[in-house]
């Protein structure tokens, strides 16, 4: 800048610039928080609760889903179930006796097993007539392979035992018949006959209907009890990459004369639908977490406004030392953002801890939702910056001459 000296000469004067290093900008912003640790932590708690609830919801849901998917993976999604449907007149139809051999001829089918529901009652003994809602199902020795049934106690129906009066209880059936062990050779009464219980099944997530059933040998059922040998359901394993192609073929193979009277379903669809239902619930809970975050943001804005009033002298001093309005504004926005990020990090810790405790108590695989964690911190940062904008501009607009004046 050129100036005229009193003796008429021109002189060049360099007026300095006001600038602050980025690291100092951040340090100045954080300094305000460090000077009021209790207030800082209490204010950050609002955001922490919001983030913690969001992370917990996402974490528990992700862990639940991961567990469900691991379960699905184990059970396989390539299992189809063929059942008799309804005729055009609305009557229940039947699967032909040759349905299972016909289905096993299909090229993409790798394994099959049929069951036959028997229209009879099961009870603890022949004198007990309490309704218990349990089904009796006849099966050959192949069902456990295809459905991956596992005995909790004892053994399953196999080639040898399917000709004998023995029964295997589903997990729910065991509870309802008050048989928790096979020690001592417990028996049940089916259609007025005594059957020895040789095993109790573990719960099966894909087949809750089998949990409520009592399994007996199909040879015994047909030959001794004289039940109808037609299957009421056929389980079919198909090549994993040909599931959709195979579905229509199965209906035609099971009942070539009336393929429309055959229902083909995939049991794993139910579990996947359950995962989707969880997602809806998750969205609702996330929205609630979002509301908590907003409340936390308002809390930060509130405290920052108070802080600006309290720190009038400091703001005036900084202006006197050469800070521009922008420097003051950024100091308070950084302070509010840091406050929110601190809350976010505390919230992440609480949320992950809660997820770990819950998932562990449920015996789930713990899935860490990294994306949600990242979004949580970014969200907290954004809310903090937004919450800081108003108080920061209030601080920047303070008249420096007024601000440095002694208080009171």
């Amino acid at each position, binding site marked *: *800048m050129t*100036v*005229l*000296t*009193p*003796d008429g000469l021109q*002189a060049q*004067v360099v*007026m*300095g*610039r*006001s*600038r*602050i*290093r980025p*690291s*100092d900008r951040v340090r*100045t912003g954080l*300094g305000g928080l*460090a*000077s009021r640790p209790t207030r800082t932590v209490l204010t950050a708690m609002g955001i922490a609760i919001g983030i913690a609830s969001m992370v917990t919801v996402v974490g528990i849901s992700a862990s639940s889903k991961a567990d469900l998917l691991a379960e699905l993976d184990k059970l396989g999604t390539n299992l189809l179930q063929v059942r008799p449907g309804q005729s055009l007149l609305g009557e229940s139809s039947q699967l032909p006796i040759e349905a299972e051999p016909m289905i096993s001829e299909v090229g993409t089918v790798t394994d099959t097993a049929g069951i036959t529901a028997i229209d009879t009652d099961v009870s603890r003994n022949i004198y007990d007539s309490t309704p218990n809602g349990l089904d009796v199902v006849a099966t050959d020795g192949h069902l456990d392979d295809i459905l991956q049934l596992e005995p909790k106690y004892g053994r399953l129906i196999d080639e040898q035992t399917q000709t004998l009066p023995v029964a295997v209880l589903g997990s729910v059936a065991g509870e309802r018949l008050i048989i928790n062990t096979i020690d001592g050779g417990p028996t049940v009464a089916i259609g007025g006959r005594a059957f020895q219980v040789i095993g109790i099944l573990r719960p099966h997530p894909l087949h809750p209907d089998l949990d409520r059933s009592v399994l007996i040998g199909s040879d015994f059922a047909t030959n001794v009890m004289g039940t109808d040998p037609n299957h009421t359901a056929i389980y079919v394993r198909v090549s994993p990459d040909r599931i959709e192609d195979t579905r229509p073929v199965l209906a035609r193979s099971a009942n070539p004369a009336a393929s429309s009277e055959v229902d083909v379903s995939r049991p794993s669809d139910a579990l996947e639908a359950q995962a989707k239902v969880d997602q809806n619930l998750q969205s609702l809970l996330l929205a609630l977490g979002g509301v908590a975050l907003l409340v936390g943001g308002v809390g930060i804005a509130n405290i920052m406004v108070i802080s600006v009033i309290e720190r009038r*002298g*400091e703001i*005036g*001093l*900084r*202006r*006197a*030392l*050469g*800070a*521009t*309005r922008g*420097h003051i504004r950024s100091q308070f926005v950084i302070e509010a953002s840091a406050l929110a990020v601190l809350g976010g990090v505390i919230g992440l810790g609480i949320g992950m801890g809660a997820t770990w405790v819950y998932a562990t108590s449920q015996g789930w695989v713990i899935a860490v939702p990294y994306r949600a964690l990242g979004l949580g911190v970014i969200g907290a940062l954004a809310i903090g910056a937004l919450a800081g904008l108003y108080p920061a501009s209030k601080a920047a607009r303070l*008249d*420096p*001459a007024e601000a*440095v*004046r*002694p*208080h009171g």
Partner: protein
Amino acid sequence: MTVPVIELVDVVRTYPGEPPINALDGVTLSISAREMIAIIGPSGSGKSTLLNIMGTLDRSSSGSVRIDGVDIVELTERQLCGVRATRLGFVFQSFHLIETATVVENVANGLLYQGLSRRSRNLRALDALELVGLGDRASTKPPKLSGGQRQRVAIARAIVAKPSLILADEPTGNLDSRTSADILALLDDLNRVHDATIAVITHDNDVADRFQRCIRMRDGKIENQAHTGGVSS
């Protein structure tokens, strides 16, 4: 002939109201390098307004204010901040120290808005602390200091950037008479030995009488300017 450090010509500062109030009414004043002056006047005489305008914390309604020859009326808000960061040092009655920062950090804040590295700020701050006799208290925090020591820290912060002009607003207002004398002696030392140019606002005649030049204000005007012969310790 050298350019005055600060030169005010017919400066008027009017605050809106019914009727408008002329806090400064045609003030003309010039301070040369290495001068040490006192601005004295009763409450409402306009001395604080004068200090704010000299310190670029406020703008005049009319008239010109030149700092190191540059008319600051022409400067933008941002450029004014640059002037404050590099050419002006402030000492306030209430010290305005950051209580949670150490003494050296408080002093180094005087260079914060010059964009210097933290290391070089701290080195220069240590030098300034030596000058005010607090070299051994660098890592202490203000709550552990006496009032006189706090004002010394504030003075170190004002001189650390080696400004053209140091403006002190009632620097002894919160101190007892003995500490006040120490602070005035320190300002005198900075002026005589280190060539600092200093303007002090005070309402205390005893304080004002110790300065080379005393500007008496009344009703927004300079009542008289007297040369008293300098500070006596």
